[in-house]
């Protein structure tokens, strides 16, 4: 975690997820003059425009030309600069997948990609602006580090960590209005590749990533009221994956539910399945996410519910895996 970041919790209260990372990036920009930022006409939407305010000469908007952007970033990195690129996930990971792969990963260029509006977080914009395939695609690129931070604080930590890390990094976040998971940036330890164990538990483990982590915690709390002990892992790094934390969960609980705002094919759940299968140990695995379907239009929170990635969906999955029924709160009288 970079030292001396001067914004405070008071600021954070007013800042959305993307804004916090914009602040952090700007602060780090003051410490390291090799950092440059690029966007494809989405400076405002992705909030990387914050960097532009302090460093207009180190900021490049290439217009709606993501492929060019990745190529330019590659070239810049080759000269010793440290480019941070930001656009929507659908465009960063799919539109210019080949450029990311060939110009950045294959040539091992030190470029950091911050993909916003990932998963179904762009709700109302509809499927063309959703991205439920990016984890699969980015994960399959050799040399790419893939991170899905759970909230604004983790995003800031991830951006800072990625800048100290040598090699291409892909960080996928929501659209910036997601609720905070942690109380502050000092409230947790962030290390690329190390899952955060948010809750201890022995009956079943929920491994969540990105904006689904909050719901996992809520579901675990609800299950606890019914007497279940639920472990929750915040798996922010999909690659390199924290094999140790996963195997600990396998051995201790033998039941794993994964949740991701992504297709269940080839995403985080599949990455977890790789680990379990390779170990040869028996374990129940339920993957929550989009069940190989394209997303619909809706408010982002409704979509979490619709695809059973919210606390109700996770709680239901917990119930099914544990073969238990939870008691409903059926008191509908207004308190007087």
């Amino acid at each position, binding site marked *: 975690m970079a030292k001396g970041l001067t914004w405070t919790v*008071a600021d954070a*209260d*007013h800042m959305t997820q993307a804004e916090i990372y914009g602040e952090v990036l700007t602060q780090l920009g003051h410490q390291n003059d090799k950092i440059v930022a690029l966007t494809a006409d989405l400076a405002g939407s992705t909030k990387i425009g914050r960097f532009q305010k302090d460093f207009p000469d180190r900021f490049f908007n290439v217009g709606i030309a993501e492929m060019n952007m990745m190529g330019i970033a590659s070239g810049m990195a080759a000269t010793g600069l440290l480019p941070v690129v930001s656009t929507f996930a659908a465009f960063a990971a799919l539109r210019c997948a080949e450029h990311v792969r060939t110009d950045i990963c294959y040539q091992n260029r030190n470029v950091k990609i911050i993909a916003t509006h990932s998963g179904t977080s762009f*709700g109302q914009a509809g499927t063309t602006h959703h991205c439920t395939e990016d984890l699969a695609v980015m994960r399959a690129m050799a040399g790419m580090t893939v991170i899905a931070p759970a909230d604004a604080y983790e995003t800031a930590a991830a951006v800072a960590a990625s800048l100290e890390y040598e090699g291409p990094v892909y960080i996928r976040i929501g659209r910036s*209005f997601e*609720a*905070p998971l942690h109380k502050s940036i000092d409230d947790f330890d962030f290390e690329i590749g190390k899952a955060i164990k948010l809750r201890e538990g022995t009956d079943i483990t929920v491994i969540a990533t990105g904006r689904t982590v*909050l719901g996992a*915690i*809520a579901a675990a*709390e*609800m299950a606890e*009221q019914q007497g279940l002990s639920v472990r929750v892992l915040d798996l922010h790094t999909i690659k390199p994956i924290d094999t140790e934390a996963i195997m600990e969960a396998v051995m201790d609980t033998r039941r794993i539910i994964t949740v991701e705002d992504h297709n269940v094919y080839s995403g985080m759940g599949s990455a977890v399945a790789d680990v379990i299968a390779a170990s040869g140990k028996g374990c129940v695995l339920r993957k929550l996410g989009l069940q190989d379907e394209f997303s619909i239009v809706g*408010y*982002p*929170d409704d979509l979490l*519910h619709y695809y059973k990635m*919210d*606390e*109700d969906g996770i709680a239901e999955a917990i119930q099914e895996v544990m073969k238990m029924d939870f008691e409903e*709160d059926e*008191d*509908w*009288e*207004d*308190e*007087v």
Partner: protein
Amino acid sequence: MDREELRTRLFLRAALPLTKVVREDDKLLRLVTKNMTGVVQFEIKNAETAAHLIFADDALDVKFGKHEKPTVSFVFKDYKSLNDFFTGKLALPWIKGLYRLDIIARTVPLLLKLKMLMPEADPKEPEQRALKVKLLLYMVTTALSQLNKAGDEQMTKLTKKSPDRIYQWVVENGGPAAYLRMKNGKTKSGRGIYTRRRPFVLMRFPNIEGAYQVLTSQAPLVDAVKQGFVVTEGAMEYSKEIGLRMQYIEELMA
């Protein structure tokens, strides 16, 4: 349900019950009503709509519907008259049991205290401002729930397809809190913090003063967030939806 009938329902079910809170809070009122025994009813002439206050054993209970034998009855000729009464306009009801001046005399101060809910009321003492915040929080949440139960389209649109969701309001550092729960068309309002699930939308007021500004609509919500009077967490679109309905309540009960 016509507008006046709806308003009456809100006043009886969301505002009137606050007499309990007001009585708990104010030592003098508590003392004055300590030894009261009797039932004070509010009713509409020729209608089923009613609510009554039951004073007994140094306690006040609020119930809805008609009591068998109310000691005193405030009978309003129609919904509008009751609404006018509750919004501070001169609209004297017909009082049955007028001879029980002792009851009436001790009930009226309770009702008068409710006037602090009105926009014009702007107490200066911190405890009174805190009380107003508490009353407004309880009133708004209950009114929202009652709006839904009355079948008001604005509200049912939001609750009908809602999964189990909690809208929570809280003033930090031990301040008052209230919530609205909705699920598949049903609603429930409650005081304090709902513990069985996390809030879907959380409106957090760092202090009483900020809450006061927001809840009395002296600070429009957009500015309020900027100035730090309130922090909204959770589903952005839905905090907007609930905000709109809070405004609607305000219009109805003005």
